[in-house]
């Protein structure tokens, strides 16, 4: 395992991208920073700019409006980086499947510009904070 990936696992700064979510997953993401879960224990920190990010937490079905922005944000993130598709919508468009405004899911949009992107999926509507932590752990043990 290269030192870059090892350091990435020890200190993951995440940027939160909402691509048309109902705000439920977003609230659960913010839950991770509260004293009960406190992901700063593992070096995970929420940052305000994709340039600083190592992981993109994408929530929501990707709408036609949001898709170009998602591609832009992904290209603005310095590599190596990981994409987390949070929630049923981001993983596979969920109940909005075949909706007129849906062009997602997330992995399809990301793979269009980078076929080798590292994408992890955390299903649930919304996923529990425990599920997200376990998703990160599984992704890190697979890398």
């Amino acid at each position, binding site marked *: 395992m290269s030192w870059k990936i090892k350091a990435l696992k*020890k200190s993951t700064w995440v940027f939160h991208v909402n691509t048309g979510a109902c705000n439920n997953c977003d609230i659960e993401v913010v839950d991770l920073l509260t004293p009960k879960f406190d992901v*700063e*224990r593992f*070096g995970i920190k929420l940052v305000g*700019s994709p340039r600083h990010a190592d992981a993109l937490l994408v929530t929501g079905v990707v709408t036609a409006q949001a898709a170009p922005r998602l591609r832009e944000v992904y290209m*603005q993130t*310095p*590599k190596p980086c990981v994409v987390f598709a949070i929630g049923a919508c981001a993983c596979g468009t969920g109940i909005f499947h075949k909706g007129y405004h849906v062009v997602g899911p997330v992995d399809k949009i990301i793979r269009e510009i980078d076929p080798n992107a590292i994408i992890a999926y955390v299903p649930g509507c919304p996923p529990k904070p425990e599920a997200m932590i376990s998703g990160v752990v599984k992704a890190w043990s697979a890398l």
Partner: protein
Amino acid sequence: MSEGLQELFWILIFPGFVFTVALGLVVSWVVRKVSARVQWRKGPPLMQPLWDVIKLTGKEVLIPEQANRMVFIGAPMVGMAGVLLLSTMLWRITISHSAFVGDIIVAIYLMVLPSLALILGSSASASPHAALGASREMKLVMGYELPLVLALIVVVIKAGSISLAAIAAQAPIASISGVLAFLVSLLCIQAKLGFVPFDIAESETEIASGMLIEYSGVLLALWKIMQAMMLVALPLFMVMVFLGGFGTSGWPLVWGIGKYLLVVVLAVLIKNTNPRVRIDQAMKFFWVFCGLALAAAVVLAMVGNAYGIGWL
């Protein structure tokens, strides 16, 4: 030749680069841990700041297309050089008492350098958020420099000397004007470090890290290292100027570390118990309230000096 090597050793290894960076990373861990404990969280492990820096050096460096490349890359190095010089100077005065007359004025200039570098770097990055951050930082620098210099004038009047070694030999905190000057310059240090009531220039929630928004990879790591080094240099400056300096052995050393940690923890507690102010509020606070308090302190110190009353 050997003297040149000795100088190089001072700047690069012992009180200089390696030592300051190592200490700075430990202190930035202290800052994060204390913040976490205040918020009833567990907080990051000791090695966390080091891992952050290692990770950032391993990342891709993205430079915006319209950015001025030279300034964009050079600015973090200028800022780091300023803090490095300041830290080396302060430690050498502490350790070997090799002071020169007027070094407090040099220290004032060196302390502005990181803020100037931040303004330069963010203006060069061709991002509207960064431009907003730079303009806020400029106003903030103009705001806090006046009270800081007034506070140092109080100290100079008390000590009767503009040499840091002579100032560090006594503790102006044991007087009314000294306490006023200490409190105000603690807030100025807060603004210099970019801690919360005055982190207007890089407020994450409104302008998305403001000045640093376009920096990534190694360049961001340089900024983080610079901020860690400032966490060493600025509280040390406070200890030397107001609290009677640092010993080099035995109990004075332990006492000195205690005073240093006291300044750091005070800054962290202020950071964690206050909301962010607007830029106009910050300017008003520094110019009107701090300015008036310090004008009073200067008068008190001069009266105390003229009539030989120590506690004024």
